[in-house]
């Protein structure tokens, strides 16, 4: 037996193209649709300017409680009838809240999509929001958050966010609130949030085989009866990076792993450095062969996986490294992590590493954007960040053309190893002593 010894050369690449985009404006709103010939399934997402950032202080989680209350019946039908009507189409309502928008998604075989959008709009625009139902949903959400916060991760995430955005009000608090803030949400808060933010037309994103979808019908389903104009966007929050690292221990007695969340603030999504920053983070902690995953997982065996990335929203951004490491190696794992961040900041990237990052990011635009759901998400990015329809083609080109100098310069500008906040959620008795060396130590009361 003799295997083929040499690696084959690539064939001829077919040109990349994002699906054709069509627009229909009617009833005060806009439908933006991407054509996916041959897909049986279609997805629609109603995108509303009703993000978590619009919640009031101390009531973080209001939008999430509203999202979960939408299916507790509408002005037209009770909750059981609503569930049967929607699920009878093969669709389920997927409401979600982030820092930039409120989304209500439905997926169904294309012939059922218009009915599914009609029902989604019915829940979004005319939910019953009976006081007793909203209070119960709120209480259930408090319980669900406590369940979630019993897992490793959410408490560390909250501690990191509180430290990075300490002076920025709503942005210092968890996206979906915490058990205490959700418990404080009143029925009136939820009704007011709905009244104030959910009734404008918004945008409907559609991805599917458009030969079988009538966009005018979808526009009417999504926007009929709505009023109001789009809202002006607020400006970026700016950057604040501490002079010395902060170290925060979140005690989790008996934990067999330490959950690491290490980060600092970064520019918002509109930054002109978006492409080189993304590539720098890919080299540092994005790809499987990234510096962090290679050293901490593949060489040291400290973790099942470690990731470093920038997350950027309309008004703020942050750099973050996330991992779960075995408790006994918490200190060494942090030391190695900081070493790789410092090396990337100070020495930049190499051509060999960048070649992987470029091709991976460019290829992912086709490989990871196959489903109607993924394409609808890509359309949402265009709308939220005001990007043109040919954005993904130019993004791909920019990835492929980025130079070592540009990416290294971005790493130097947008990594700050001496201004990191290091959150460790783990067994305090086992790890507390070894954390002081990494910066100003604190341990918040539970």
């Amino acid at each position: 037996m003799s295997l083929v010894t040499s690696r084959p050369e690539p064939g001829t690449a077919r040109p990349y193209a994002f699906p054709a985009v069509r627009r229909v404006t009617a009833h005060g709103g806009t439908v933006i649709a991407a054509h996916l010939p041959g897909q049986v399934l279609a997805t629609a997402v109603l995108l509303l300017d009703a993000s978590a950032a619009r919640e009031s202080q101390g009531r973080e989680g209001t939008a999430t409680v509203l999202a979960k209350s939408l299916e507790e019946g509408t002005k037209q039908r009770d909750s059981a009838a609503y569930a049967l009507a929607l699920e009878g189409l093969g669709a389920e309502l997927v409401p979600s809240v982030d820092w930039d928008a409120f989304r209500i998604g439905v997926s169904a075989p294309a012939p059922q999509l218009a009915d599914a959008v009609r029902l989604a709009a019915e829940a979004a625009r005319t939910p019953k929001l009976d006081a007793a139902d909203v209070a119960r949903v709120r209480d259930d959400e408090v319980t669900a958050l406590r369940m979630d916060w019993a897992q490793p991760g959410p408490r560390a995430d909250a501690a990191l966010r509180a430290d990075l955005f300490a002076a920025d009000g709503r942005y210092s608090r968890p996206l979906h609130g915490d058990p205490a803030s959700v418990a404080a949400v009143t029925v009136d808060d939820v009704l007011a949030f709905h009244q104030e933010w959910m009734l404008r037309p918004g945008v409907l994103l559609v991805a599917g085989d458009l030969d079988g979808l009538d966009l005018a019908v979808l526009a009417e389903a999504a926007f009929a009866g709505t009023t109001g104009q789009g809202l002006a966007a607020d400006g970026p929050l700016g950057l604040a990076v501490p002079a010395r690292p902060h170290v925060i221990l979140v005690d989790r007695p008996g934990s067999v792993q330490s959950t690491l969340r290490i980060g600092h603030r970064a520019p918002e999504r509109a930054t002109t450095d978006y492409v080189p920053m993304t590539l720098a983070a890919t080299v540092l902690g994005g790809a499987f062969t990234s510096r962090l995953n290679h050293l901490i997982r593949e060489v040291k065996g400290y973790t099942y996986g470690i990731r470093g990335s920038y997350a950027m929203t309309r008004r703020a951004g942050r750099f973050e490294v996330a991992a779960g490491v075995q408790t006994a190696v918490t200190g060494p794992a942090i030391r190695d992590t900081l070493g790789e961040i410092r090396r990337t900041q100070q020495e930049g990237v190499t051509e060999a590493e960048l070649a992987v990052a470029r091709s991976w990011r460019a290829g992912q635009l086709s490989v990871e954007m196959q489903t109607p759901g993924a394409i609808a998400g890509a359309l949402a990015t265009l709308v939220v960040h005001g990007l043109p329809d040919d954005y993904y083609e130019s993004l791909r080109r920019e990835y492929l053309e980025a130079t070592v100098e540009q990416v290294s310069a971005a790493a130097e500008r947008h990594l700050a190893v001496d201004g990191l906040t290091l959150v460790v959620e783990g067994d305090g008795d086992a790890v507390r002593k070894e954390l002081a060396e990494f910066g100003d130590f604190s341990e918040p009361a539970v």
Partner: protein
Amino acid sequence: MKSGQGIVGGVTSPTAPVATTGYPWPIETTRLANGLRVVVSEDRTAPVVCVNLWYDVGSRHEPPGQTGFAHLFEHLMFEGSQHVKKTEHMKLVQGNGGSLNATTNPDRTNYFESMPSEHLELALWLEADRMGGLVPALTQETLDNQREVVKNERRQRYDNVPYGDAWLRLLPLLYPEGHPYHHSTIGSMEDLNGAALDTFKAFHQQYYAPNNCVLTVAGDASPAEVFALAEKYFGVIDPVADIPPAPVGHLAGPATSAVRETVTAAVPAPRLYLSHRTFPFGTAAYDAITVLATVLGSGRGSRLYQRLADGKRIAQPDYIGSYGVDLAHAPAPLIITATAKDGVPVEQLEQGLVEVVQSLVDEPVTDDELNRAKALLTTSWWRQVSTVGGRADTLGRYTTQFGDPATAGYRLPAWQAVTADDVTEAATRTLQPDSRVTLTYLPEEEKA
């Protein structure tokens, strides 16, 4: 398929479109002289191709003392082979724009990469090199490193998460000692610590053979091109004679005595798992179980949600549901779970849960319930095959487990053909209290 039109015809009710096939794309197959089965499903919609290999070896093949070995072995497959240096596999796939992964379960091990289609040949070369040339590259250092990675995977996914070990606890309660599904795929820390290099070399030589594998390519490639490349890269690999089968998974019907286990642990609320052995995946009886599980526990219109989360309001709405685990080599488990709302005693939750399960035996499933379940399953089927990766894996499964990739097209129509009587009969046969496994989690402060 060039268009979605025409395959969702034949509407029987306003809300339940019936499909004549769940796989409207072309399928072509061949078999190399060394026994490798090659399946190709061409679709030129996007310049993306998926290469998927199903090896017919899973944790069911592991002898006592070697639990977790099939999965640890899967990790070793990414650490280099005869002509691929350590770390190069990942670098070449991601560095050419691809996504890749592999998974191990009791039944099988699968490996897959979706690539921009100009890199099809690269993917095939990489897969052939680790099928035919892994052993020379296997080192003690690699084994030691990946053993630690897998132990961290176990910590992260099972040991450090509330209720994370439920599946590990259910299996030995559902399947008797010596049964191939008795132990979990992740394995025990003790066995992992004892893993020796020679065992893994022998494991590869035994099971990673062309005649124990199905290679599927879906997407932007033609059958002729793939068949020729398969011959070029895999054709030189020798078959292995007399691959030993896994221990027999035959079980004489459902369990005959109920089993209970109660765990007091660091969990935030009492939770129940009820489980029954049902039928092997791929049988008509299991199709009825799939529909039954959807009627019972999928979505807000399900009986569990309507009666316990809404209705009695004793269960947390985000943590209630039921599902079958699609295992093909022995009766597969149905798992039903609910978590108590604040202040609800676990006994009350269990009584409510048992009543709803029993209702599937006593109360016929209505047309609305049946249509709802079928509509949800229809959407989930089309979602599964909406990517070239999903399609390749589906074809690999049906070729490996049922001998013919075309059988993939039958599953959706089979679900849609399930009747209310089929569901009742499946419930009567499988959901008896005598055959039930009940796993209860209690928070530590409630310790008696």
